[in-house]
């Protein structure tokens, strides 16, 4: 660590000296090749062998991908099946709305967090050369027709020209990286309108022979709108970001992201059939009751004068709420939402003394409670209302959307559980520590598939009469409990990296244990473990493919079994698997790349 810093200082110092070097050391392609490819006999042999491997590999790969008898039609025709399985056509606009909300959040977030770094012309030129190199490799190694090769050659030359122009004429100009990304996306979306990709359709289970021309309107129009939504959201965000306090806007966005998945799924995609009579007779009164009584109670509890009595009352409430839940098992039937609200209230009550102080803070605390209560009640109402979307099978989503739903819900659910487990394992209270450690080690010692099978087959045996979970939900539950153990281990690494001085300083300021943990320790610990946490996100996303084994219609099953089994596309399993692999790859690769950027931004990568 010191070593590195020393060198950094040193380089910085040279920079300060800052004179233009009188001589430029010799370098050029020949020197580069000598130093990097043929520095010794061994290196030369390695280079030759490596080139051979690369040549064979890329030739085989490109030859396969662009081979004449490849059934890429299987993918092109089934794209909708791949992403949303059998979501009904007449309701399809819901899918686009769901995607649009996500993209709008993306645009807003990019603006609010000022995510865009800047790239200079020299670097852009380098990228341009890279693209050209890729195109040239493809045109040399792929089994293309001469016409196609000519197009690739022209494209490659355009990129070479652009790169050369940028490098020579404008090496120092700077563009926001974001506009480069949006530009590329715009070109891709624009090409849907221009380039004749062909129109692949599937009418009443019959594959239509692909027609020439651009893709169907139902593809290109929504995508164009989506891109616009994202761009507009970005500019909206840019316009408001200086007028709203950053704390508020960022908080709202984080809440938005957390709510995105349940909202998209339960409210938009499921299209619940609300019975308004029921809503006003039952749901609204329950909400109002908890809003009024809860607020009053919290106002009383959060008074700094309250002291230990407040804690005792809150503790009793938690126990009461817990007993209330357990009582359900012995036949005390109460509306589920009442149990949920009671538990919520008691948890917030426990937190009250930690987060409050003077009157203004208490008022904000009560406001927070009301918002939370409203959200929970709204979501619970939506979740409990039946879906009106008619699909074959019991679950409205399938394919990639199911994979995404499972991955995101698992992440959302495992985060709080993992946090509690990590705190438990590092706590000074031996029974908590014992319970957490046992849980974590047992879960980490067994393969995910055994947990998934356990939850699929056995979970319903353990539930009281009348309660049951669908396959999808039990898989999500099992998977979340599984990944919480891994997440806990990652967070524990962060907790252990916090120096003792931080605790001592917090104690010296008179903070309670809960305050120290939530204001001092956790923020630092989570920041320190961003890289492993992102690794965990990637692993979770990749391992959703295991849903295939327990028979769910996830992305992999759609590709491998459903599309691969269509009579029109018999024997297309390799193509389908490659497509599935490609989509997984694109997503995990971009997550891991952006995590590297994030690490740089947080200053974590340095050592």
């Amino acid at each position, binding site marked *: 660590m010191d070593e590195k810093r020393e060198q950094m200082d040193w380089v910085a110092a040279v920079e300060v000296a800052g004179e233009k070097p009188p001589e430029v050391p010799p370098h050029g392609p020949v020197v580069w090749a000598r130093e990097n490819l043929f520095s010794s006999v061994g290196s030369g042999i390695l280079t030759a062998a490596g080139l051979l491997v690369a040549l064979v590999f890329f030739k085989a790969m490109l030859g396969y991908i662009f081979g004449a008898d490849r059934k890429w039609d299987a993918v092109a025709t089934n794209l909708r099946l791949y992403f949303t399985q059998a979501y009904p056509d007449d309701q399809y606009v819901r899918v686009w709305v769901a995607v649009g909300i996500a993209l709008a959040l993306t645009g807003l977030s990019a603006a609010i967090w000022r995510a865009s770094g800047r790239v200079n012309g020299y670097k852009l030129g380098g990228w341009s050369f890279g693209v050209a190199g890729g195109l040239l490799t493809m045109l040399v190694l792929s089994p293309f027709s001469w016409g196609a090769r000519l197009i690739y050659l022209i494209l490659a030359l355009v990129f070479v020209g652009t790169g050369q122009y940028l490098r020579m004429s404008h090496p120092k100009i700077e563009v926001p990286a974001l506009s480069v990304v949006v530009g590329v996306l715009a070109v891709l979306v624009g090409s849907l309108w221009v380039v004749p990709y062909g129109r692949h359709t599937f009418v009443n289970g019959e594959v239509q022979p692909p027609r020439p021309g651009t893709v169907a309107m139902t593809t290109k129009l929504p995508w164009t709108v989506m891109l616009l939504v994202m761009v507009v959201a970005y500019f909206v965000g840019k316009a408001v970001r200086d007028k709203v306090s950053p704390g508020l806007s960022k908080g709202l966005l984080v809440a938005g992201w957390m709510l995105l998945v349940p909202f998209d799924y339960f409210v938009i995609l499921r299209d619940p059939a609300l019975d308004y009579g029921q809503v006003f007779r039952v749901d609204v009164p329950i909400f109002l009751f908890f809003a009024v009584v809860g607020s009053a109670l919290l106002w009383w509890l959060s008074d700094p004068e309250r002291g230990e009595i407040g804690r005792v009352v809150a503790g009793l409430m938690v126990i009461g709420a817990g007993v209330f839940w357990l009582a359900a098992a012995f036949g005390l039937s109460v509306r589920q939402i009442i149990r949920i609200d009671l538990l919520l209230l008691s948890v917030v009550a426990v937190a009250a003394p930690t987060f409050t102080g003077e009157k203004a803070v208490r008022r904000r605390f009560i406001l927070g409670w009301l918002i939370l209560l409203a959200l929970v009640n709204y979501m619970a109402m939506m979740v409990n209302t039946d879906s009106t979307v008619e699909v074959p099978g019991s679950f409205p989503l399938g394919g990639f959307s199911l994979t995404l739903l499972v991955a995101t819900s698992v992440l959302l659910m495992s985060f709080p559980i993992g946090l509690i487990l990590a705190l438990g394992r590092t706590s000074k209270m031996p*029974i908590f520590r014992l*319970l957490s450690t046992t849980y974590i080690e047992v879960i980490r*010692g067994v393969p995910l598939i055994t947990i998934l099978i356990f939850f699929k087959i056995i979970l319903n045996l353990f539930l009281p009469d009348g309660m049951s979970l669908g396959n999808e939900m039990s898989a999500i539950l099992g998977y979340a409990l599984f990944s919480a153990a891994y997440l806990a281990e990652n967070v524990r690494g962060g907790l252990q990296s916090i120096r003792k001085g931080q605790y001592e300083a917090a104690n010296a300021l008179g903070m309670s244990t809960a305050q120290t943990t939530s204001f001092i320790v956790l923020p630092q610990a989570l920041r320190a473990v961003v890289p492993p946490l992102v690794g965990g996100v990637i692993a979770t996303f990749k391992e959703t493919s295991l849903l295939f*084994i327990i028979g769910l219609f996830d992305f992999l099953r759609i590709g491998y079994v459903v599309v691969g089994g269509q009579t029109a596309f018999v024997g297309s399993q390799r193509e389908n698997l490659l497509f599935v692999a490609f989509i997984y790859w694109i997503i*995990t690769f971009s997550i891991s790349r952006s995590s590297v950027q994030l690490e740089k931004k947080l200053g974590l990568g340095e050592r």
Partner: protein
Amino acid sequence: MVVIKWISQVVVLILVVSGLLFFAAQAGSNLRAKNIETSWRFLSVKPGIQLGEGIDVNPSTGARALWVGMVNTIRVSAVGLILATILGTIIGVARLSKNWIVNKLSTTFIEIIRNVPLLVQILFWAVVIRTWSEVDFNLGPIHNWFMVSQKGIALPRIFPSTGFYQWMVVVLIGAYVGRRVYHQRETEREETGRETHALSTALGIVAVFAAVGLLIHPLFGFLGPIFTAIGDVLDAIPILVVQLLLSAAMVAAAGLWIKRFLDNLRTPAGLAKLTDDDIFRIIFAGFSALMGIVLVFVIWPGLSAWLIHSLRDFFHLLGDKFEWLRTGRPLDGERPRIVQTGRFPNFSTSGLVITKEFAALLFGVVLYTAAFIAEIVRAGILAVPKGQTEAAGALGLSRGLALRKVVLPQAMRVILPPMGNQYLNLVKNTSLAIAVGFADLVQVGQTLYNQTGRTLEVVAIWMGFYLGMSLLISVVVNFFNVRLRIVER
């Protein structure tokens, strides 16, 4: 404050335990309602299933079937572990290469493999193998030596033959002698500075013993009756004695742990004041020992008998392998052949036939794990500060020597713990075998519970097995880790 702390803990403990009890009771009543009783009887009756491959494809009992599955899991894990380590190390070092193309190739490999789900890769290999050629009578690439078909890959194999165990005794004696000589020579070299060729001498000695063993191994047949006798003696030990011994061992272990724990707390000024946490730890150690004793005597009285019988069977088996003046080659080899079975040509049972399921699973886990191991190796080598290499260079150490004496020992310390994690992942990942139909523990278990309805029991066995494996791996990794630890203030 302490009181509140303990009350809250006990309340949570009670909630957790009662929650578990509640679920267990619920499961019990649900099972009774469906008229299924928890029972382990399925382990001892013939399951009537046929396994894809393994040491016994027609197992006579459920337990035997699961055992075959475990052996298959261990088999594919062991092979995968070795191959992934070798491949991963090579690629990891290649990523540090100054040669541009080698560097980029290994980076490409890692970035592709790491970012695609393992299951997709395994299925992909399975599909690829399905497109290979059919078995025929002039199958290549090298007929009757190395044959690749959609049924799998066939290789020659070397296996222990009748004289193996007797010969092995001679080799083991040779290894012992060689080790002694090696250390002696090493000391001599260090004391006098003369080159003593310690390693080559020691290897030579082992080779001589192995060669001589080929001639004299029949003489070692006398060990057979001794092993049998040991087995008989073990069998004669009353179960009660075994139970008492086990209990004593557990009490001793707990006592040792407590003693060490207290020793660590001891300061020059005397024993530090015990916190309630420390007291809990001590009580818990004692409690665990007590639970162990309860387990041995009450919960699972058959455990001791099972242990002692397994040991007895092991020694009897060993006894059977030795026979006075039994001749025969220690090792034998055979090549794969193609035979006509039914209407189509197929691989014969001779030679080493890697089935298509095994191959798909193996390719998948080896490449996948290798990509992660490569990153670990790279990070480990990079973690050694540059100053260390420079200091070694400044002392005149050659690059090879610096790598061996300075960089690698320090890199190993960084590499080992995550490497252990990867090994563990590999073992767990072999459970994806179920997707390609390889008869590993999970697949066999699934077949078994589909047939008998004993899901809970099978899941319990799965978890027990994998927990055991992970315990084993972490014990081994820990053992090496402790030896590599660097002393700091």
